[in-house]
């Protein structure tokens, strides 16, 4: 049987798998296959520092091109996996090349969910996930006057903040009743609505976008079901993603809301793992199956699979965390708050610095922190250690969280 690792997908998860395998002393061949014609790069800055012009392309690269050569990682940029032959243990690429594997890691990522309305393909309607899309957005933004953002999630709001900072007239259209409603408490949504409004960004929640109207093939306005129309020479759509599961599904691997893996991040085929945005794993904390789209999830799952392949298997139990930067405000999230039955606020939203502690059946499950980085970092320790922090203690600012966390066993 062949040895070596083939990694399909060269985003954060794919890159990190390759790097961690070599760091762990793995000596067999490693092939890293990526669809984009770039050296693997970080995505988070695309909607933050890169969009603001504070970061250049080179600064996005995880490592320079010579890193892959120096570590004998065969980077195939601009290549795509087409089919997996599980019996023969090889992957066929779009170019016709076949790669044999001992272990196969699917780090396929996700793609933008497309807006299913008339006018969505007009010139001036953009999505943002890849470096090329981000570069196109930056170029367009320079010349735009009226920017309409469809979707009030992380990406949409980050881009709204960028456009607002650059002095554009910005409107955010969100279908649900409040911003980032999938992930944060109402108090956080409200804080961010006010933050954006304070910077002149118009936020419209609970609306239904029905059409993008254009002139000569170019977007001109975005229309709502109630007849309201917003002028737009740039429309940016951030309404979520669809996981790339087709390669796995076509190989008869089970797929749910992502490629299904077990607590070792293995698919139904013991030689095939799936990690990052494309995979659904049993979450140690929520005790539910989850598919997460985050740097933490990609990097931690990658390191976990690399350790497994290098001979140190274990259950995946890393705590999920997330962040978003909008204007001068940082929101940091530890844990997953979905399913909470109680919330406590520490600090005061009026000061621009507060945290929401979420409980389920008396157990601390997640903490959202706005401009309170110490709360966030300590919360990661508390939740990871299943610490018993009473809701009254969480709400009491005179209760010293740092001292409390210091008594916990180190992770």
């Amino acid at each position, binding site marked *: 049987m062949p040895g070596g690792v083939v990694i399909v997908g060269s985003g954060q998860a794919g890159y990190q798998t390759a790097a961690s395998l070599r760091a762990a002393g793995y000596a067999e061949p490693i092939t890293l296959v990526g669809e984009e014609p770039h050296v693997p790069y970080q995505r988070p800055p695309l909607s933050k520092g890169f969009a603001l012009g504070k970061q250049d392309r080179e600064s996005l690269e*995880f*490592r320079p091109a010579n890193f892959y050569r*120096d570590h004998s990682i065969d980077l195939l940029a601009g290549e795509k996996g087409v089919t997996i032959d599980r019996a023969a243990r090889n992957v066929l690429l779009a170019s016709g090349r076949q790669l044999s594997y001992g272990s196969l890691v699917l780090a396929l990522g996700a793609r933008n969910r497309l807006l299913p309305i008339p006018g969505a393909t007009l010139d001036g309607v953009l999505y943002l996930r890849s470096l090329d899309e981000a570069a196109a957005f930056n170029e367009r933004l320079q010349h735009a006057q009226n920017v309409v953002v469809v979707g009030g999630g992380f990406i949409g709001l980050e881009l709204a903040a960028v456009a607002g900072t650059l002095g554009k007239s910005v409107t955010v259209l969100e279908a649900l009743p409040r911003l980032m409603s999938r992930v944060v408490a109402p108090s956080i949504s409200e804080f961010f609505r006010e933050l954006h409004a304070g910077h002149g960004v118009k936020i419209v929640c609970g609306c239904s976008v029905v059409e993008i109207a254009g002139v000569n093939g170019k977007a001109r306005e975005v229309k709502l079901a109630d007849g309201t129309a917003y002028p737009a020479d740039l429309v940016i759509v951030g309404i979520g993603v669809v996981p790339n599961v087709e390669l796995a599904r076509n190989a008869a691997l089970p797929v749910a809301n992502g490629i299904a893996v077990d607590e070792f991040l293995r698919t139904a085929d013991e030689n095939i793992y799936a990690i990052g945005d494309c995979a659904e794993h049993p979450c140690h904390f929520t005790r539910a199956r989850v598919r997460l789209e985050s740097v933490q999830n990609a990097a931690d799952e990658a390191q976990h699979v690399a350790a497994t392949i290098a001979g140190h298997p274990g259950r995946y139990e890393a705590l999920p965390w997330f962040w978003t930067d909008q204007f001068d405000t940082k929101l940091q999230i530890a844990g997953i708050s979905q399913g909470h039955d109680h919330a406590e606020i520490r600090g005061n939203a009026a000061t621009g610095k507060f945290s929401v502690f979420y409980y389920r059946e008396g157990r601390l499950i997640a903490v959202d922190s706005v401009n309170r980085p*110490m709360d966030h970092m*300590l919360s990661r320790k508390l939740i990871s250690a299943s610490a018993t922090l009473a809701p009254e203690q969480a709400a009491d600012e005179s209760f010293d969280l740092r001292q409390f966390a210091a008594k916990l066993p180190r992770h």
Partner: protein
Amino acid sequence: MPKVIYVSAEGEKKEVETPVGTTVMSAALKNGIDGIVAECGGVCMCSTCHVFVDEKFFDKLPPASDTEEAVLEISAEERQPTSRLSCQIKMTDDLDGLIVRLPAKQR
């Protein structure tokens, strides 16, 4: 160009010429210093670019922000009095010869 001297946990030294304004983290990534991971890309969300700054240089650095202080709370190898995140140290001429020691583990 000012130099940074990275000392691995095993004691191996590597000198890297680092342009003024570049962070000690990003110079490490560009120059094959494997002991710095920098998982979050330099935004103070992870502690995987943790370094121990040589005492001679520690006081020359601008103090750590609250955000950096918070992250040092979760470093994989316990923080020491001269612990910093290398993503927050920007090179200056004054820091020429800066010595940073890398922890044995970043995660």
